[in-house]
């Protein structure tokens, strides 16, 4: 019997023949927290009686969710986190460096790694072939101390991608379509593994968008193979030596195989208040919006800003809306400035927010008012997500968000480009 990607990585890291359904104890290559889960992690770490980290250089604190802090309590949490970094020698990424998942992709994740983060979108690094999954503060506290954790080896769904994205259709539309097909709990406890001939043309930025939202179908990981595109990304980010090819075995056993023909896709969005509540944009267009938000660990990368800038260049945001842009990292922001995207966006009337999670989780930088509608490129639209249970959040691609920002209502990007 062959192995899936999940079985391969967990076998290697647990020094055993891991098969779906087994429970294994595996080495953790990277463990991290962010500023809203980190303080509880520290409390659990200390309560367990631990003092030292197993691997301080492979332990990271990211200050990204409340960045910069909008409240004294969160500022005090930041102080606690900085102090812990000083005490233990772990790495810390300050306010303004960017979103944890983007920085993990840019600087740390490698094919075959095991990554645990106290944030559900840790799955993002699956784009690089890392078995990366979100856990709570207690689990990450123990992983920081022991350098290990336990996993139930998941069964895998193979998502077989073929064809080419039509004009106006992006990775975000694909993953929203898939979540609509699978359902918000359809892949609970499972691994989503992506394959098919379309991968040869799928950039790392697109893969990160797709892997990022695997958790919205309930999945434990969203795994891509380690291939030529992975190698090129690692070389570009100065760690080409860490590349190793990683593919599932041909005879691997999948619980389900889901084929998707990219040629057949169209722009899609998620309606309030569930990510799997998807519709084609053509059936929702005309809904008035008060805010468009382009950014987050799902869609705040350079390619995303390029798409938005191209649509918005020479246009103006509708006077009735706010257009908020948050680059996913400092590096993304610098490159977007160099390429002129930021100028185009600002001239179109955008407000540029600092690299970080920004408005995504309702803490600051774009909290919605009662009955307001936001079209966001983020990954969640649960009731209350953007700070107000009386507001509505729609999820879509940066192209749909940019086109809608011009019209002031939900707009099919194919009508603008």
């Amino acid at each position, binding site marked *: 019997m062959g192995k899936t990607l999940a079985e391969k990585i967990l076998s290697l890291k647990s020094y055993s023949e891991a098969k779906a359904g087994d429970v294994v104890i595996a080495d953790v290559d990277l463990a991290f927290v962010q500023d809203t889960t980190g303080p509880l992690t520290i409390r659990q770490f200390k309560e*367990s009686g631990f003092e030292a980290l197993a691997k301080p250089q492979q332990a990271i604190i990211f200050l990204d969710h409340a960045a910069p802090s909008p409240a004294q309590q969160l500022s005090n949490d930041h102080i606690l986190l900085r102090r812990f970094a000083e005490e233990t020698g772990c790495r810390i990424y300050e306010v303004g460096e960017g979103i944890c998942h983007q920085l993990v992709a840019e600087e740390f994740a490698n094919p075959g790694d095991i990554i645990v983060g*106290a944030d559900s979108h840790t799955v993002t690094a699956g784009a690089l072939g890392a078995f990366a999954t979100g856990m709570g503060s207690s689990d990450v506290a123990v992983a920081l101390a022991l350098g290990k954790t336990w996993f139930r080896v998941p069964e895998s769904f193979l998502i077989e991608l073929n064809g080419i994205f039509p004009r106006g259709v992006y990775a975000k539309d694909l993953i929203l379509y898939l979540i609509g097909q699978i359902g918000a709990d359809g892949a*609970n406890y499972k691994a989503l593994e992506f394959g098919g001939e379309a991968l040869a043309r799928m950039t790392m930025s697109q893969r990160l968008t797709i892997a990022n939202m695997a958790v919205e179908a309930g999945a434990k990981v969203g795994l891509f193979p380690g291939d030529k595109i992975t190698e090129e990304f690692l070389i570009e980010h100065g760690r080409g030596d860490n590349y190793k090819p990683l593919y599932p075995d041909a005879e691997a056993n999948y619980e389900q195989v889901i084929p998707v023909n990219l040629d057949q896709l169209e722009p899609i969005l998620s309606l309030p208040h569930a990510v799997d509540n998807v519709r084609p944009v053509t059936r929702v267009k005309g809904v008035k919006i008060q805010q468009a938000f382009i950014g987050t660990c799902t869609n705040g990368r350079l390619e995303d800003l390029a798409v938005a800038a191209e649509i918005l260049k020479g246009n103006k945001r509708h006077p009735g809306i706010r257009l908020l842009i948050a680059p996913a990292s400092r590096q993304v922001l610098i490159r977007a400035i160099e390429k002129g995207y930021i100028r185009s966006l600002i001239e179109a009337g955008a407000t540029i927010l600092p690299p970080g999670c920004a408005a995504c989780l309702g*803490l600051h930088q774009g909290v919605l008012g009662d009955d307001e509608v936001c079209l966001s490129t983020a990954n969640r639209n649960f009731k209350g997500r953007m*700070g107000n249970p009386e507001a509505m959040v729609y999820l879509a691609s940066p192209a749909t968000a940019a086109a809608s920002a011009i019209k002031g209502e939900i707009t099919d990007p194919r009508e603008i480009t």
Partner: protein
Amino acid sequence: MPDLVLKGKAIKLGDNISTDDIIPGRFAHLRSNLPELAKHVLEDAVPGFASKAKSGDFLVAGKNFGLGSSREHAPVVIKMSGVGAILAKSAARIFFRNAINQGLPVLLCDTDKIGDGDELEINLTGGMIANLTSGITLSCSKMPPIMSAILKEGGLIPYIQKHRGFKL
């Protein structure tokens, strides 16, 4: 260690109760002040829940309870409200593990057989739920032995304090 037999009343909830329903992100500034945070448990989904919940009550939900964020504060504030266990048709992966790590039992069963306000008796060892109101008995799906062991110790931290590592 939690009691092996729990008795209490069912508080029924629907499907897809997210971590934003349980404890919204807008209260992130209270996460280092758990008693204050706990006052807001489920307040958007079940107005007045924190004052209504009685010690020993059970949350009885539909499918995919706890979907969303990895915030362990979600099971923490549910436990602080006095809830003795969560019953659901299915539970999101991270929430499920977090709840067990907090020593809060999550039992997966056919919750359509339970009505709001029903009196339940739960046998944690046998994984059986007796609905004293309707007379129906329900069985729960089994969790991996390592999770049962963590729950038996009252959560991950007491488990680690005792074993200093994971035992399979």
